[in-house]
């Protein structure tokens, strides 16, 4: 009864709801087939392709973090890669220090999530509690990211080290002494059993895929929940949301921190994948790439963003041998996408398919007008 009623209000239950495209049985069938294909990918693809596929999956987690705050929360962060990198450095530093003593990396992954959250909490509290919005938040997040990059670049001096991990400046994170371990792969231990997921292995690919699925389902549930509605209300009209009694500062800070946690997780996975993290991750190019994935997909829909991230990252990989052309084309794709499909190419295509299947005109939930903050 309760379920029926809440559907009658046009509200979703669980994973389905008006805040996400694709709520039909047909969608979930296609989704399951897609997932099955991705699980089976190691049977079809070469080892090298699997290694790249793992990285693409990691990127899609990062893209979902921006989709959450920008697409659903209305907060444009141009420095999303900074949380990714902070998470990466935190994982690396904690991992190098703990791998020998504890033999596992659970704490390092936790550090990769918590450190960016702490950072986001401080930055977010300053911004949202002084009620900065829109372009101010966008510029400040970008500038903070660039400043962090500037800082990490000049940490070549051995002075900049935490325990056994040296920041390493332009060379990226490295062990402080000759005998110290490098950035460890993901290592889990339970009683006397231990599992190692090396970034080049198929196990790591499957693990990352599982995390992508969990983050995706978790976010779908979140954006269709009560909190999701508050988030969307904030995106549409901050003042009106506040005059319905919601503390918009807290909502914005919460989603900012959650997004930093997801970005940090993705950065920790990246560092584990490549056993490597470098200050260039704070610079303009990685930050803009995240924005490109989200814009091209359609920032107001999670599924579209994941699809576009996978496609664009794959295109970038194919173009990588040609050098600068890769980023140039990504930039062109962004500008063209903004001109022809402001709600995202994938999302508009998805809405079109949805209409074809439903065979009746329906309004896509992503047809919001841009709100100027």
């Amino acid at each position, binding site marked *: 009864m*309760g379920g029926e*009623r*809440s559907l*009658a*209000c*046009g*509200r979703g239950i669980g994973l389905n709801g*008006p805040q996400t495209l694709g709520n039909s049985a047909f969608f979930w069938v296609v989704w399951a087939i897609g997932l099955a294909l991705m699980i089976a990918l190691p049977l079809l693809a070469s080892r090298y392709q699997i290694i790249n596929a793992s990285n693409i999956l990691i990127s899609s987690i990062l893209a979902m973090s921006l989709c959450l705050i920008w697409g659903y929360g209305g907060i444009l962060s141009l420095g999303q890669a900074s949380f990714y990198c902070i998470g990466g450095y935190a994982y690396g530093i904690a991992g190098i220090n703990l791998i020998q003593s504890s033999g596992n990396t659970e704490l390092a992954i936790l550090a990769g999530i918590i450190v960016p959250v702490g950072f986001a909490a401080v930055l977010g509290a300053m911004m949202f509690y002084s009620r900065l919005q829109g372009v101010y938040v966008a510029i400040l997040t970008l500038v903070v990211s660039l400043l962090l990059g500037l800082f990490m670049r000049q940490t070549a001096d051995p002075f900049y080290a935490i325990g056994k991990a040296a920041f390493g400046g332009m060379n990226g994170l490295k062990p402080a002494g000759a005998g110290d371990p490098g950035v460890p792969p993901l290592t889990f231990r339970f009683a006397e059993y231990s599992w190692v997921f090396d970034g080049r292995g198929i196990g790591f690919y499957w693990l990352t895929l599982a995390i992508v699925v969990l983050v995706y389902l978790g976010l779908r549930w979140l954006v269709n929940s*009560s909190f999701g*509605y*508050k988030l*969307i*209300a904030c995106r*549409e*009209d901050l*003042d*009106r*949301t*506040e*005059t*319905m*009694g*919601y*503390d*918009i*500062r807290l909502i914005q800070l919460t989603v900012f921190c959650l997004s930093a946690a997801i970005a940090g997780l993705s950065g920790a996975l990246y560092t584990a994948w490549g056993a490597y993290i470098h200050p260039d991750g704070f610079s303009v190019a990685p930050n803009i790439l995240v924005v490109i994935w989200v814009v091209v997909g359609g920032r107001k829909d999670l599924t579209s963003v994941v699809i576009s991230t996978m496609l664009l990252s794959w295109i970038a990989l194919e173009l990588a041998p040609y050098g600068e052309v890769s980023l140039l084309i990504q930039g062109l794709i962004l500008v063209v996408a903004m001109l022809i499909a402001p709600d995202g190419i994938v999302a508009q295509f998805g809405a079109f398919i949805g209409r074809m299947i439903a065979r009746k005109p329906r*309004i896509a*939930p992503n*047809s*919001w*007008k841009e709100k100027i903050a």
Partner: protein
Amino acid sequence: MKSVEQTREGKVSILEVRDVRKYYGGIHALDGLSMDIKKGEVHCVLGPNGAGKSTFFKTLIGTERPTSGRIIYNGADITRLPAFRRVGLGLSVKFQNLRLFGDLTVGQNLFIALRRTHRVADIAEQTEVLLSRIHLLGAENRLMRQLSHGEQQRVAIAMSLATQPQLILLDEPTAGLSVEETRLVADIIANVNRHGVTVVVIEHDMDFIRSLNGHVSVLHYGRLFAQGSFDEIAANDDVRRIYLGAA
């Protein structure tokens, strides 16, 4: 209605506005406004265009901070409280330019308005109660921006009722409504007022104000110009003059 005015003196004030000023650059939207709103009354605020009525509401609800002055609600100074805290204390507003979530459905709009004070399980029932009060039963799944202006106006009023307020600020609740709809709004106001809720209304429609049968304040150039019962105000030559002067 002399009786309304006579009993008014002894009543407790729910809202006291003390010398409130709001300057936008050189424009003095509010220029030393003082006013009492008594608990349980229907209070109409009139005034020519640019008299500062909407700014007055915004400083009351907290989306605008007054340049100076104090606002006291139930005896507590709320001048510096953020808007959401005032709403938590029982204030509620319907803005002049509705500000609904146009791309959400009616049901989703009401869900957002109801969620703070209701459990999810109760919201469907509350939605039906509110929709039946504004004669829009069964409209949950319609998109907000596809509603007519009159329907949107009614939903906006319903949303201001949804937060279980003690004091409702309605900025032009009958703008764009038909005669029938206007009568419906007057009924809604009378009904919530009967349950002890104080209602403050900004209006231009004189017939509507008369039908509310409440206390009337006239703003002019950001100050309280005149106040009294509707008949007193209607008979006031100065009030007539400023209206004609503004027109």
